[in-house]
């Protein structure tokens, strides 16, 4: 009876509304504050684990104190984002010293990678791993992403994101299997020969638009027929010069052949 009377009270709707607003506000504040935190809090255990992995897997080239050596750059100030990108894509530990670090099987588990990232981030301030809301593309403009992609990315990564050749055996990798977090980290840190697109020259909203466009490219189908890898004139030319002209030659031989 009491509960029924409370439910029927005139102010009940107002109270419930207020309670809902307050809860949402606190929840939202909690979510955004974690998203904006530049240095994630890492436990001492995680830092120790990361240090251990660093000494075993990274110090040979990057130096015992991550100060760098003739074989590898200093990691002080590169931030957690660079570590997460390089290790979670399998580029680090390096397969062999060469002009380009190729992607290969990932060596460490997700826990180990975050411990390593936390350790390197503790050496000096640098870009942190983007949060889920940083790489969320729900509010991003696809068309704007296309314009930005063609202005800033397509010259190396190809108009369809399939990658392309650079000089001296270097290349821009294909983006077909890149995750939104990896794309964001790559823009933020400029891995290897890729230039840096920091949050000042390319604000997060623009990065999200680009990510949305690349995700669109990853799912793009080929309405016009065989895409031939979307490499443009190279594969298309090879195809038509071998298969196309080959078929014409075969037809010419058939037309000219003597009938028995």
């Amino acid at each position, binding site marked *: 009876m009491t509960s029924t009377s409370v439910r029927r009270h005139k102010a009940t709707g107002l109270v419930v509304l207020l309670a809902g607003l307050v809860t949402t506000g606190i929840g939202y504040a909690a979510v955004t504050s974690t998203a904006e935190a530049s240095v994630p809090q890492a436990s001492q255990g995680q830092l120790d684990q990361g240090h251990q992995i660093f000494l075993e897997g990274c110090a040979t080239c990057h130096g015992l104190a991550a100060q760098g050596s003739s074989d590898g750059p200093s990691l002080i100030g590169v931030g957690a984002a660079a570590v997460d990108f390089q290790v979670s894509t399998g580029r680090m530990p390096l397969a062999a010293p060469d002009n380009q670090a190729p992607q290969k099987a990932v060596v460490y588990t997700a826990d180990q990678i975050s411990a390593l990232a936390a350790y390197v981030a503790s050496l000096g301030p640098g870009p942190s791993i983007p949060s889920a809301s940083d790489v969320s593309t729900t509010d991003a403009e696809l068309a704007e992403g296309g*314009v*930005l992609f063609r*202005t*800033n990315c397509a*010259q*190396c990564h190809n108009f369809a994101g399939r990658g*392309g050749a*650079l*000089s*001296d055996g*270097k290349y821009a990798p294909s983006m077909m299997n890149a995750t939104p977090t990896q794309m964001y980290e790559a823009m933020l840190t*400029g891995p*290897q*020969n*890729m*230039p*840096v*697109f*920091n949050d*000042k*020259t390319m604000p997060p909203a*623009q990065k999200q638009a680009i990510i949305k466009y690349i995700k669109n490219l990853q799912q793009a*189908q*080929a*309405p*016009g*027929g*065989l*895409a031939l890898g979307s490499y443009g004139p190279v594969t298309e030319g090879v195809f038509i010069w071998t298969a196309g002209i080959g078929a014409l030659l075969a037809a010419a031989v*058939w*037309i000219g052949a003597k*009938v*028995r």
Partner: protein
Amino acid sequence: MSNSHGTDLNVHAATGDEPVFPLPPHHHRLTDTDPRAAKRAERQIATMFILSALGMVGFVVAYVMVPTTSYLDLGPVGVLQTSNLLLGLTFGTATLLIGVAAIHWAKKLMADEEIIDHRHPVGSTDEDREEALAAFNAGVAESGFAERPLLRRTLIAALALFPIPLIVLLKDMGPLPGDSLRHTIWRKGSRIVIDVSGQPLRPEDMSVGSLVSASPADLNDIQEAEGNQNARAKASIILVRMKPGEIVSEQGEGWSYQGILAFSKICTHVGCPIALYQQRTHHLLCPCHQSTFDLADSGAVVFGPAARRMPQLPITVDNEGYLVAQSDFHEPVGPSFWERP
């Protein structure tokens, strides 16, 4: 059928003269000697024509029935739009079958004769030549061309000047470029803004390793006033930032700002816009012909067909702290041209 072809062999004999190089003996086709083979070829050809007709009908059916939203996963070949695939297959096969059937018809069933077409000398007879020459000489004598030098010379003068108006008209092909190839819209104090977003830049916005495609702030206004994109074609630049110690040389004293360098975006070879900047090596690579420029060393050409270094734009900051140009480029941007080898 074979009987009618039997006479064909005598065609060259019937002309009367024996060929200098006699033809090899003619072998009859199977379809000429065996009526069943001829019938089989006829059926094959008819089948191809019928399939072609069905293909055309199939094209119309596919066009009307298959929605453009449906896609077909062909595994390693890729995901293709069902509609386009069917349209191409039906129309392509139908057209191909008409051609194949026609050639098959010609090869198997149409008359298989070998005919000699004799060559004859192409020159005219001696009588014709003499007659023509006599007529020409008579014309020259009657016209008085030889006896009246005044007419001859004035005619030659008139014909000599005849092409001159045609050459003069070429001037209407457009005004000469003047010195527009040597200048861009960059000038002292032009503010540098990021391409697409139009946002002005402060030096601290760029980190070491950054690459920014940029243009002058007033580009859009000038473009609108001129009604074309010529200004954009010449004024596009890229900004890069490296550690000041990494800069080996510059095209002018104090042209960079705290390690930020501005270069033309237009390749000096044939004018492709380039931004394939490799931040470790500071090399700028042109995708068209692989010209490579070292931006840390005055934009010098280190590889490829480009003949000239990449022009550098001198930059500084204005009193509000934004990056601006110190002046226009000091040399023409883009590919070489006639007056500038």
